[in-house]
């Protein structure tokens, strides 16, 4: 096993700052102990089963205790959607009035035609023409930021993209991380100025998809009206879509994206302050963009984090 993996495991307790003292790594089949207790007076939570009067872990993760409830928080798990989550999804297909989106979960989510803001932002009934023009709004493979509107009892996930924040992503890159690294927060859209000049938008999707790109990069890519409708309120209040990014901006986007990757490699929770920490360290240590994903930097950063 390489030293990074070992480093990440040794700092298992460190990864989950909520429980700095009690967090302890367990593998499936191991006893889940809290202090010296394995059973008495405790409630059995997720990731544990009762085997011959002992709590035994069923997944690999850290022990978490909330009051009497003992559970194992997994290292890796599939994203479980909850209402209100901001997610990034990729359009897989169109089924009738719905788009099907891959949101890194068990099931694909659906985005109903009535759950989006039409270009121009005029609220009206969706007619058959809209249904035929769905491709113009979100085409196959498009990356769409959306919010989970509801999760039905059978696990079906409904999304909506009503609001200026949501829409098609462009001018940036997607990084996929383990969903447990993303904490639900008040806002998932962040703007960072890594060097006071460039505004970079980070969208940390609850489903582990993280978008790093230029500010206001979301846009109805295929909408010819996009440039015209800028003054309207609604889902299309976006800048004109262009494809070229200047070298300096790209460098900054790349640095932030690499920072996210570094955190993901070290299995550290991902939030803007920490992303900026990585970016700042890389700048301080004079690490070039090319070398950010090299072992030397990742190890050096992990050592800096533990200090």
């Amino acid at each position, binding site marked *: 096993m390489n030293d990074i993996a070992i480093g990440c495991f040794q700092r298992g307790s460190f990864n989950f700052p909520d429980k700095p003292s009690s967090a302890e790594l367990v593998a499936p089949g191991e006893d889940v102990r809290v202090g010296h207790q394995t059973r008495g007076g405790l409630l059995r939570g997720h990731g544990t089963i009762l085997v011959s009067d002992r709590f035994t872990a069923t997944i690999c993760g850290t022990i978490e205790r909330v009051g009497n409830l003992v559970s194992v928080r997994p290292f890796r798990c599939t994203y479980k959607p909850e209402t209100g989550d901001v997610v990034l999804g990729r359009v897989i297909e169109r089924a009738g009035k719905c788009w099907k989106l891959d949101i890194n979960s068990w099931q694909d989510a659906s985005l109903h035609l009535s759950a989006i803001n039409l270009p121009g932002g005029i609220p009206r009934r969706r007619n058959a023409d809209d249904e035929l023009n769905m491709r113009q709004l979100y085409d196959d493979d498009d990356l769409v930021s959306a919010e989970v509107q509801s999760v039905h009892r059978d696990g079906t996930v409904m999304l909506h993209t009503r609001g200026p924040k949501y829409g098609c992503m462009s001018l940036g890159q997607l990084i996929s991380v383990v969903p447990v690294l993303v904490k639900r927060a008040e806002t998932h859209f962040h703007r960072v100025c890594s060097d006071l000049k460039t505004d970079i938008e980070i969208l940390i999707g609850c489903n582990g998809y993280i978008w790093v790109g230029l500010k206001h990069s979301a846009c109805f*890519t295929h909408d010819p009206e996009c440039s015209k409708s800028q003054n309207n309120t609604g889902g299309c209040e976006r800048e004109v879509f262009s*494809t*070229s990014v200047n070298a300096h901006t790209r460098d900054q986007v*790349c640095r932030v*994206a690499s920072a996210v*990757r570094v955190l993901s490699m070290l299995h550290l929770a991902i939030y803007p302050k920490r992303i900026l920490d990585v970016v700042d360290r890389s700048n301080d240590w004079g690490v*070039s*963009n090319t070398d950010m994903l090299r*072992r030397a930097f990742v190890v050096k950063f992990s050592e800096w984090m533990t200090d």
Partner: protein
Amino acid sequence: MPLSRAEIDYVRDGIDQNMRNDGRTREDYRELTLDLGVIPQATGSARARLGLDAWSTDVIVTVKADIGAPSAEHPGDGRLRCAVELSSASDTAYGGRGGEARATELSRALERSLLGATAGSSASLSAHGEGCALDMSALGIQRGKSCWILQVDGLVLADDGNVLDALSMATRAALFDAKIPKVTAVAGPNPDDPAELELDDDPEECSRLDVSGVPVIVTLTRVGKHSIVDATKDEESMRDPRLCVGVDATGKVRSVGKRGGGGIDLNAMCAMTRTACECGKQLIAALDEAHAKAEADAAVQAAKGDDDDDDADDAMAA
């Protein structure tokens, strides 16, 4: 996962500007991690990883030496064949028989780079051509009767692009790692039968393969006006033409193969081959360094008498 049109534009623009999505330039490989001797039961084995992410390209190659009959064309030589399997854990599409066509393509490419020629289906034992990378005569035991058959098995554990390069690097390392036991022929009771073979189980008596001629495959992807090495899965998903060049330690071309969609301009192809040669030469130098380090580590461990774990973990920036 396919990319959206906007993402493809962004990736292509980045390649134009010599700044790829993960910060690399066009001629940069990802961080290569090479472990030798990862499968103790095998004659030789190696694991190669490109990148440090959990989902980075990850392959294991083992070499198994078996005794069998030599081919009719080369009675004094050994034989070699390759087989690659794509783990369904690397992509759901590889479940069942899903990855078979791609696996065959990869094993053929690997075999061709090692043998200089490939014979028929992947199931048949390949005959080696004139450009064979290994000294096959060293693998012969008894002329026309018995020889070593090297079975090179590759397993793709994770696919984040550039699997063929990773496989060829791991193959080279696994061949380096292989320790072929010493075999002596003793006369059997019947003069017509093949003589009996005596296997020396002293590990000190093992012979090693000479891998100095074994090439690595450098795959270049042509994106617009430029070519990139070590494409990630995202970069591969754009279906651009690829050129797979087998390069040996002296920087000479051993094999060339074109894959992917579209065509490549002849001038571009020359430039790409040149780039591949440079990259391949550097890569082999780095691999050789890692081999030497692994060897030294193994020697140190053997001296310590700690023979439980003679894994050598080497990292190097290619």
